[in-house]
C-alpha cells in the first residue's frame, strides 16, 4: 500500500461518510480516522467517540450509530456548581437522595457537595428521570463537572 492507495481510501471514506478504516496485512497496519467536522465527532480519542456526552447533534449523526445514542443525546446533565466533594446522601448512614430511575423535579435535592466544610444541597433544576449517576460517592468534583444525567419527562 503506497501513498496513492492511502489517498484513494481517504477519498472513499469521505464520499461514503466512513469515519474509521483499519487494515492489517503481512506486518503492515494502517488505521485512518476522520476528523470531527464532517460527522460532528470531536477529533479526540476513541473514548469520546463512544461517550454519548460528546456525541454529535442528532442531525449530523450517521445512520450507522446505534439508535440509543440519539436517545441519550436528549438527556440533560446536572453539573456541579462548585469544586468540592460529591456525596449522594446527607450522612454516610443514610440512603442516596436519588438512584437511576428516580423522578426528579427542579427543586428535588439530588446530592450534596461539601466545600469549605459546609454541605451544599444541589437541586436537579430540571424535570425528568435520573438516567445515570456519573460520579462515585465521596469523590472530588470540579466546577461544571456533570454528575447526573436526566432524561426529560
Amino acid at each position, binding site marked *: 500500500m503506497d501513498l496513492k492507495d492511502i489517498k484513494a481510501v481517504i477519498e472513499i471514506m469521505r464520499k461514503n461518510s466512513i469515519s474509521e478504516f483499519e487494515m492489517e496485512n503481512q506486518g503492515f497496519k494502517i488505521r485512518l480516522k476522520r476528523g470531527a467536522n464532517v460527522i460532528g465527532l470531536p477529533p479526540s480519542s476513541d473514548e469520546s467517540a463512544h461517550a454519548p456526552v460528546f456525541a454529535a447533534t442528532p442531525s449530523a449523526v450517521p445512520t450507522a450509530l446505534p439508535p440509543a445514542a440519539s436517545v441519550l443525546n436528549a438527556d440533560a446533565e446536572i453539573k456541579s456548581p462548585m469544586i468540592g466533594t460529591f456525596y449522594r446522601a*446527607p*450522612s454516610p*448512614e*443514610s*440512603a442516596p437522595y436519588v438512584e437511576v430511575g428516580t423522578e426528579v423535579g427542579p427543586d428535588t435535592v439530588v446530592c450534596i457537595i461539601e466545600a469549605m*466544610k*459546609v*454541605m*451544599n*444541597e444541589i437541586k436537579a433544576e430540571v424535570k425528568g428521570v435520573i438516567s445515570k449517576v456519573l460520579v462515585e460517592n465521596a469523590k472530588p468534583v470540579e466546577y461544571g463537572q456533570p454528575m447526573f444525567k436526566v432524561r426529560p419527562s
Partner: protein
Amino acid sequence: MNMDAEILTALRSSGAGSLSGTELAQRLGVSRAAVWARIEDLRALGYEITASPHGGYRLLSTPDVLHADDLLSRLGKTRVIGRDIRVFRETTSTNDIIEKLARDGVREGVVVFAESQTKGRGRLGRRWVSPRGAGLWFSILLRPVLRPHEATQLTIMAATALARAIREQTDFTLEVKWPNDILVGGRKVAGILTEPTAELDRIRHVVLGIGLDVNQAAGDFPPDLRRIATSLRAEAGRPFDRAELAVTVLRALDRDYLRLKEGQFEGLAAEWEQLCTTLGRDVTILLGSRRIRGRAESLDSEGALLVRTEHGRLERITGGDVTLAK
C-alpha cells in the same frame, strides 16, 4: 474525631501557649507536612492561626461560621445528642433533612445545622424567619421510648434545656410560654418544633427542631415580627459567639434528654414550671374554631397544660394557640 477537630482541640487546650508542628504531628500520628496542610485549610476558613519557627502554632481567633468539626471539638463527648454534627449552607428546613435521616434508619443523636433556611417553620404551619448566619437553626434526631401522647415531654425537655443554656451565656430573665416558646421581655427569642412520627402505641422517631435568634439587630426582623420577636444581641446589646452558644445548648439538651430517658420527667417538669410564665396566668386557647378561656394551673405528667376554665372545669390542653392575658 477527625484531624481538623483534633488540631483545634489541641490548639485550644494549649491556650495562650503554642504547639510545635512536631508535637501536633506526634499527637495526631501524621507527618508535619500533613499538619501544615490542615492548618492552611483552617486558615482558609477564617481561623486565625499564627506560626513561628520557634514557638509553633497558636490559635488567635475563630470565624463566625458553624464548622461541624469545630463544633464536635468544642462539644467534647456527649452521650446521645451531638454524636454526629452536619452543617448545611442552606436548606428548606433542618427538620426536613433530619426526617430523611430518620426514615433511612440513622441512629439518634445526629444534629443538622443550616446557616439559613428557606422554609423554616414553627408550630401550626407558621414560618420561622432564618437569615444566613444570624442564628442557630438546627434539628436533632431522637428515638425515645415514649408513647405517642407523651411527645410533649420532649418539647418541655427541650425548652428547659434551651432556657438553661441561654441563661448560662446571658443574665436575662427568661420566660417559657407553653409549650414551645422562649421569651425575653415578652418577645420570642427561641422556638421549638417537635415533629413526632408514631405508630399506634409507640413513637418511631421525633424530629426536634430549634430556632434561636442570636445576632440579628432589632431592625433585621420583618416589620410584622418586630413586636413579637427579638434576638439575644438585640436584648444584650452585644453579639454572641454562635458556635459557643450551640455547644452549650447541645450539652444541656444531651443532659436533659438522658434525664428524660431515665424516667425523670417530673424533675424536668418542675424546673420547667419555675421558668414558665404561662402557669398562674389567665389564658385564651384557640383550638381550631374552639376558644377556651381560663387560668393555666399546672402541667400534667405527660406535659399537657391543665387549664381551669371560666366555668370551673379543668381542661387538659395538648395543642392549640395560647395567648396570655395582659
